[in-house]
């Protein structure tokens, strides 16, 4: 049941987002249905909860880390869950009429339901980590809800501020919760709640407390983090009514109450929570008086009331905790109804500015009456629910809990704040509903549709009923909730309206009278004053916040970038290599690295000779790469061939085959590229070579390069002359045949044991090929290289000089014999590729090698006959081949699911074919077929895309010439 309760809103959210944007009503019905369903579910659970049982729902998630998906419902969680769903239902009804048809209403309801789900998750979590996850979720969804009108910059800024502050607090809280888990040894809420003494005695207690308080106080908008809440009023009013009065901001208070048995009672708790609560209570109420925006007034009033709850929690006495829980509920009812009333006024008149509004009583008497009752509850007038919890608060404020200054001033601050509350409540009612006829309002006010008012009626009715006969209505529910938090420490408390002539009543009277008096004095000033309280107007939290943000994320970031950053590649490369070399050298030397002694025996002279050539090639390539690119390419190929021979020599036939084939393709590729790279002519008089700084730079680069080379040499020599450690290699060698069904262990590793890696790798290859293709589609070659190459021009000139020759004859004759051979090679190469492919599982070869071999076959045809000739005769669709390859490889992997095995499990079997004999037919060969197809497609695509440039560029030139001619003609 608990799982259904939490998941239903999320499911509804997904369903709501699927509704077309212009269909608001179905979305509202859906949300209402979901909210009603959740409320009914919660109500159905009440008998079980009331009997004192705790409902739990456990799913093992990561039990090794103590992280389980645990939902837990006790009386307190039940109370909150009912609050969340009940107010949610009312707000849905309200929003149905509030939201304008021009807004994307289904998105609103989708986010709304997601928020409801996240909030239910927070209150029902039975695991601290899960709680933190849902907590973050509420922050994110509330960000989206505040920014719902994202075309409005206030909404965007308010949303960002709320997210930054509550998100930062949430992260602090997350660390705090993890510390609790570390202290207790479990994240389970039941375990944590029963080990309060352990936590309070732990040396980390203060850290935990501060971190968790940061989370709770930011969420509940407590001073000095309060300023995000007024800015969040840019949200649609249903959001304010739901999130910023009843639920989201209560999450912080919820957490404080939830962990109250564990964390409360210490001096640190008393001071931090008490200071935050008291200052919030007073400042919130004071600021509220001076707001001109109705929602701003309500927001500051909310801040103040949350401060009141926080103060109650700080006192550490069970009776105060009862009052806190009670006031949480009361505040939710009257504040939600006030927000809705403010929304109605905004909706019907088009403004929320209290300087412009007045005398609305004659236009909307019902709404006015409802708002008046709710305001009276907010002010704490007797016979309303706000009065009861306020009396309890006063009673607790008078009690002495700790002998210090904070405890002494509490009753005075409480009375003063309460006086302010009366003032701003009066102000709200008086300036909106009474006074002269309003003029120049954007709209002509009138009563809203009946169902828009219904939620307020219900809530105000609740205020009245609870206020008059508390013990018959709210009593049992409150008792269940209190009992689940306080357990055996539940005190005896009375919910009666009349407690006799006592000090709290006296304080209430002072507050009421003083408040009315203050209002009368302030009235003329407030009617015209600017927004915000005097003196504090300039000291806005928002400005400090923005300034900090700008400094951190803009100024400092820029200055660091200016000083430490560079956009030039060469310094970056130097730093990169230097750091790599230093990191290697320092760690090795610190670990006491000793290079192995050099042993000169057992050097094969042939091998040494090969490598002598290899080294010459490498150095030569490095020397020639600037001005003699072709020579450098040839030398690079030499070094590649030596690498390839090394693989042959040292028992790696697979590598040798692949290296050889890749070497060929790379050379062809770079040759194709060189066509578009204009020549670099060496200029012996280039002044750049001569300068001192250039020389020094080169010397430094040379030193770094030599150092890196020497380091690699020592490192690899030492590594290779040590005994090999025990690795997982023997596992593969033993199992390759019995489990992979192939005798070529390297291939079996690639297509079977580590098939998933190979799948990822061919996907990378695919992406690279597509990138190359896309880049070349819009390729503009260097202008110098546009004309026909020099050799071709010479040949054509020769043809033109001789009358019996046609242009292009020379090339055709020159390449006649090679091109015939190349054409004949095509089937042979195809045969070779097939051979390599089929023997791959047992002998050197495989899909990679076969694919590259086959692509060489294709490129040879291009070289022999030219692009047009080939494409007239062969159908070449590398993109399709790649797609087919990827699909085959993935489908082979998925196929093993059909038989109940993990992804990419292969099945090995031999099949007999006529003539050829037995061939291995593991499903791995299908996978390898996918690899083959993809490698073939990717390689051909890259090569052809480059080769096509020689067709495209002249065509583009022709078009350009034709255009120029047309222009001259006209």
């Amino acid at each position, binding site marked *: 049941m608990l799982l259904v309760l939490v998941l239903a809103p999320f499911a509804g959210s997904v369903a709501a987002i699927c509704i077309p944007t212009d269909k608001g009503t179905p979305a509202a019905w859906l949300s209402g249905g979901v909210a009603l369903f959740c409320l009914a579910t919660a109500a159905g659970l009440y008998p079980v909860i009331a009997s004192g049982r705790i409902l739990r729902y456990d799913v093992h998630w990561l039990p090794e880390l103590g992280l389980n998906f645990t939902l837990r419902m006790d009386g307190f969680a039940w109370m909150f869950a009912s609050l969340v769903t009940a107010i949610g239902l009312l707000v849905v009804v309200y929003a149905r009429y509030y939201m304008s048809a021009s807004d994307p209403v289904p998105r609103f309801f989708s986010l709304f339901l997601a928020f409801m789900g996240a909030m239910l998750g927070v209150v029902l979590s039975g695991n601290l980590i899960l709680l933190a996850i849902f907590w973050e979720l509420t922050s994110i969804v509330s960000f989206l809800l505040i920014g719902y009108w994202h075309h409005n910059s206030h909404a965007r800024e308010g949303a960002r501020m709320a997210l930054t502050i509550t998100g930062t607090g949430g992260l602090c809280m997350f660390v705090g919760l993890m510390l609790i888990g570390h202290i207790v040894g479990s994240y389970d809420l039941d375990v944590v709640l029963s080990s309060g003494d352990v936590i309070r005695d732990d040396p980390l207690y203060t850290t935990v407390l501060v971190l968790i308080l940061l989370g709770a106080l930011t969420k509940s908008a407590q001073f000095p983090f309060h300023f995000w809440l007024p800015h969040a009023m840019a949200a649609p009013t249903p959001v304010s009514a739901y999130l910023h009065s009843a639920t989201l901001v209560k999450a912080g208070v919820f957490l404080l109450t939830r962990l109250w048995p564990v964390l409360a009672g210490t001096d640190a708790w008393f001071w931090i929570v008490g200071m935050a609560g008291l200052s919030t209570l007073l400042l919130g109420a004071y600021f509220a008086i001076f707001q001109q925006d109705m929602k701003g007034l309500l927001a500051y009033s909310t801040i103040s009331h949350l401060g009141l709850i926080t103060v109650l929690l700080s006192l550490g006495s069970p009776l105060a905790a009862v009052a806190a829980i009670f006031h949480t509920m009361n505040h939710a009812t009257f504040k939600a109804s006030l927000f809705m009333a403010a929304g109605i006024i905004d909706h019907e008149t088009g403004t929320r500015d209290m300087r412009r509004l007045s005398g609305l009583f004659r236009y909307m008497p019902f709404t006015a009456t409802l708002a008046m009752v709710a305001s009276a509850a907010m002010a704490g007038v007797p016979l309303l629910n706000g009065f009861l919890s306020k009396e309890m608060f006063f009673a607790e404020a008078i009690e002495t809990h700790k002998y210090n200054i904070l405890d002494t001033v509490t009753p005075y601050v409480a009375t003063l704040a309460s006086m302010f509350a009366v003032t701003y409540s009066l102000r709200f009612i008086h300036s909106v509903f009474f006074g002269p006829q309003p003029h120049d309002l954007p709209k002509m006010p009138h009563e809203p549709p009946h169902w828009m008012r219904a939620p307020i009626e219900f809530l105000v009715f609740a205020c009245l009923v609870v206020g008059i006969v508390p013990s018959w209505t709210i009593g049992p529910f409150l008792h269940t909730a209190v009992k689940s938090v306080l357990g055996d420490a539940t005190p005896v408390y009375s919910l009666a309206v009349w407690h006799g002539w006592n000090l709290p009543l006296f304080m209430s009277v002072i507050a009421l009278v003083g408040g009315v008096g203050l209002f009368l004095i302030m009235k003329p000033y407030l009617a015209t004053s600017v927004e915000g309280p005097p003196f504090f107007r300039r000291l806005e939290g928002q400005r400090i916040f923005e300034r900090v943000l700008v400094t951190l994320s803009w100024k400092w970031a820029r200055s660091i970038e200016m000083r430490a950053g560079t956009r030039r590649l*060469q310094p970056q490369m130097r730093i990169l290599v230097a750091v790599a070399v230093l990191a290697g050298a320092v760690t090795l030397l610190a670990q006491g690295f000793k290079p192995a002694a050099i042993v000169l025996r057992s050097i094969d002279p042939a091998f040494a000779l090969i*490598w002598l050539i*290899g080294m010459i090639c490498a150095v030569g390539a490095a020397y020639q790469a600037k001005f003699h690119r072709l020579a450098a390419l040839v030398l690079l190929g030499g070094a590649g061939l030596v690498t390839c021979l090394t693989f042959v020599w040292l028992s*790696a036939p697979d*590598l040798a085959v692949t290296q050889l084939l890749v070497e060929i393709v790379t050379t062809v590729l770079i040759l194709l590229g060189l066509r578009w*790279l204009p020549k670099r002519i060496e200029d012996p008089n280039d002044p750049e070579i001569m300068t001192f700084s250039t020389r020094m730079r080169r010397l430094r680069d040379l030193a770094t390069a030599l150092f890196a*080379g020497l380091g690699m*040499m020592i490192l690899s020599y030492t590594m290779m002359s040590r005994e090999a450690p025990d690795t997982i290699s023997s596992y593969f060698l033993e199992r390759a045949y019995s489990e992979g069904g192939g005798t070529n262990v390297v291939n079996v590793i690639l297509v079977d044991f580590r098939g998933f890696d190979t799948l990822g790798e061919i996907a990378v290859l695919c992406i690279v090929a597509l990138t190359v293709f896309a880049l070349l589609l819009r390729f503009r070659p*260097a202008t110098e290289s546009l004309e026909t190459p020099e050799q071709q021009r010479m040949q054509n000139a020769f043809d033109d000089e001789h009358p019996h020759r046609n242009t292009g004859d020379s090339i055709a004759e020159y390449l006649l014999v090679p091109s015939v051979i190349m054409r004949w090679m095509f089937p042979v190469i195809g045969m070779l590729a097939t051979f390599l492919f089929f023997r791959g599982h047992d002998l050197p070869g495989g899909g990679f090698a076969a694919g590259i071999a086959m692509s060489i076959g294709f490129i040879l045809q291009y070289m022999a006959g030219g692009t047009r000739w080939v494409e007239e005769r062969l159908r070449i669709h590398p993109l399709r081949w790649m797609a087919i390859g990827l699909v085959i490889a993935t489908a082979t992997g998925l196929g093993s699911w059909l038989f109940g095995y993990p992804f990419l499990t292969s099945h090995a079997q031999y099949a007999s074919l006529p003539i050829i004999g037995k061939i291995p037919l593991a499903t791995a060969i299908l996978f390898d077929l996918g690899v083959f197809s993809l490698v073939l497609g990717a390689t051909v695509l890259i090569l052809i895309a480059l080769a096509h440039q020689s067709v495209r560029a002249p065509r583009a030139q022709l078009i350009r010439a034709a255009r120029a001619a047309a222009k001259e003609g006209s």
Partner: protein
Amino acid sequence: MELVLAAGIGVLTASGVWLLFRPRTYQVIIGLSLLSYAVNLFIFGMGRLRVNAPPLLEPGGTGGLLTHTDPIPQALVLTAIVIGFAMTALFLVVLLASRGFTGTDHVDGRE
């Protein structure tokens, strides 16, 4: 054997790193290719150098590190070779596009 190969790796690395610091795009490509040879050989060397012991089993048999060379570095290097090719291809195209776009073959797109 080890000494020769180690010296080879060292020279390939030094040449590659030197080219990596050069200002011309083509030099950087050649440098990266040389460096990838060195790295591939280094990874390959992790399995130690063995002559005449390719990781090919008798049909139906099993193998061990006594009779066969280590297959894992080979499998790693095999994929590295193919990815290295893809990288070279991509850089080459970026080089050509940058040359056409900026009119210079300096790595920063301006002299």
